């Protein structure tokens, strides 16, 4: 795997950069190219030159005027924030119960979570869809948010280990001071696992933001849709205005990428601590 050891260190180092830079470029290429294209004028859109010159913001202006970006982003933000908040509440309460209040339930409940995680969403989507429409939640944020709380299993698996890492003596000390369980959770456990909550929350937020199938079924109409549905429809309709399409794609993806890159250290830490280094 590493014939590099036999080479001179400088050469090995150069090779290291070469491989990683190449891989990084390949992995980030589609988004990078989208970003560059979004600044190109209509005559340069297909130009193989990577540099957008002359650069223009026309594409963004076109998208912002013809596409309900604000509404789509708003819908998606409400959905993602709702799902993240809901899953965090579920996971924190469950984690506290499984570590502090009813540790005996822990293996069984965590197994149920693992199995739920492995179920492919498409395999159970018809009953989910039927139930949601029967509840009258089509084309509503409720219909977008509540069914997606079923995927809380990952948040539970990630957070339960963090709750378990809170020193038991602190929890006992709080109880001896007269704290009720909910007060122990609020005053002792929550502050201790705040970084993990933030990391898991961001992870769920991003996953939900990128969700495609469920919003496609529940809220396909343009004014209830999420950015993913909007983007897919935009691509279907205005398929030839690639500059504007790339601008739309960048507008809906870049904020998420930036948030992730800033938070990635924390997210990885939460994976490590959760023992999800499988």
């Amino acid at each position, binding site marked *: 795997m590493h014939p590099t050891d036999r080479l001179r260190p400088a050469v090995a180092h150069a090779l290291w950069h070469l491989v990683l830079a190449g891989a990084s470029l390949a992995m980030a290429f589609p988004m990078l190219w989208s970003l560059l294209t979004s600044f190109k004028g209509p005559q340069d859109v297909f130009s193989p030159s990577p540099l957008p010159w002359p650069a223009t913001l026309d594409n963004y202006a076109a998208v912002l005027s013809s596409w309900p970006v604000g509404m789509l982003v708003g819908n998606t933000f409400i959905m993602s924030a709702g799902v993240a908040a809901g899953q965090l509440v579920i996971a924190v309460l469950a984690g506290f119960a499984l570590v502090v209040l009813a540790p005996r339930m822990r293996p069984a409940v965590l197994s149920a979570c693992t199995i739920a995680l492995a179920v492919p969403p498409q395999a159970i989507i018809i009953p989910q869809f039927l139930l949601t429409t029967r509840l009258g939640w089509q084309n509503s944020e409720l219909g977008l948010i509540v069914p997606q709380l079923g995927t809380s299993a990952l948040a539970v698996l990630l957070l339960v280990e963090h709750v378990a890492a809170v020193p038991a003596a*602190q929890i*006992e000390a709080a109880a001896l*001071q*007269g*704290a*009720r369980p909910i007060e122990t959770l609020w005053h*002792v456990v929550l502050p*201790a696992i705040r970084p993990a909550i933030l990391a898991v929350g961001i992870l769920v937020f991003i996953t939900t933001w990128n969700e495609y199938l469920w919003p496609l079924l529940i809220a396909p109409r343009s004014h209830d849709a999420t950015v993913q549905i909007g983007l897919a429809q935009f691509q279907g309709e205005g398929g030839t205005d690639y500059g504007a399409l790339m601008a739309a794609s960048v507008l809906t993806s870049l904020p998420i990428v930036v948030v992730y890159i800033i938070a990635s250290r924390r997210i990885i830490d939460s994976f490590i601590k959760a023992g999800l280094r499988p």
Partner: protein
Amino acid sequence: MNPSSIVAAKPNGSAVNGAELELSGLRRQFGGVAALDRVDLRIKPESLTVVVGPSGCGKSTLLRVLAGLDRPTEGRVMSDGVDVTLSPLGARDLAMVFQDYALFPHMTVAGNISFGLRLERRHDRRNGPSREFIDREVSRVAQLLNLESLLRRRPAQLSGGQRQRVALARAIVRQPRVLLLDEPMSALDVGLRATARTEILRIHRELRSTLVLVTHDQHEALTMATDLVVMDAGRVLQAGPPEDVYRRPANEFVARFVGSPAMNLRPTDAGSVGWRPTDGRLYPRGGEGDLVLTGVVERCEYTGSGQEVVCRDAHGTFTVVQQQGEEWVRPGDDVSVGVRQSALHRFDLFGDRIDG
């Protein structure tokens, strides 16, 4: 018990009466292992009861059962005649100092100390402690434990000794009738332990609560306790004033565990006989006394006030303490040791003390 009534019954800053605790037939089983095995014990009101024993003897489980953190498999815990075996945490009028202090890391020192009082206030706005009362009580215990300048710090910014004082302050601010301390000195540097002992003794004197302290250090136990409880293998082997335990150990285990250097024991036909290293007298040869053993000096350890002499004979080693002024022996010397009848402890074949 309504927590607010306790506060109301406690006029500001005045001492409370420590509760009397009584444990009867207490058993706590973990799987097949009995951490507590039929423990009967009376803990006197306002005593400083020290529970001592080797690690794994059940002393920590005993403390956790007293605190309500652990439920006994069998038996009862009575507090002033009231059965509290199953009463919920926080409803018992007691506080605990944990071995590693268990301070809340994200709260300031003041926040840690006032935590219990703030909860009381939240639970009962009308009769609970007022904000002014809480502030007053926090500064009172902060003064008592010399923490005034540290109130705004967080636990991570404190030294080990300071953390221990915060843990004590948090435990005593609500003036509990019972204060439990789990190995409170074990996380401290040796140099700080004497100070910490003094602090705990002072708190015991001023608070007049019943203190139950758990330790594996027999020296700490002897010096601090008003009542000493020696445990091993889940059982209470002896309970009583430290002088009694030291002078009249109930069995071989207590005899060997309490006192340093440990008691010498020699088998006899009817069991064994023992004597304290301080009760033996060394003679170059020959010797006087009701028990005379001969041996060779193996090593001598100078202690400042004298020297500890380890001798070897056919049965193993025994230790004798020589005082300043005696004629000191040296390694390799042939010696004999004499012990007076009154200083001998006799134990039967089961290891139990034979009185006489």
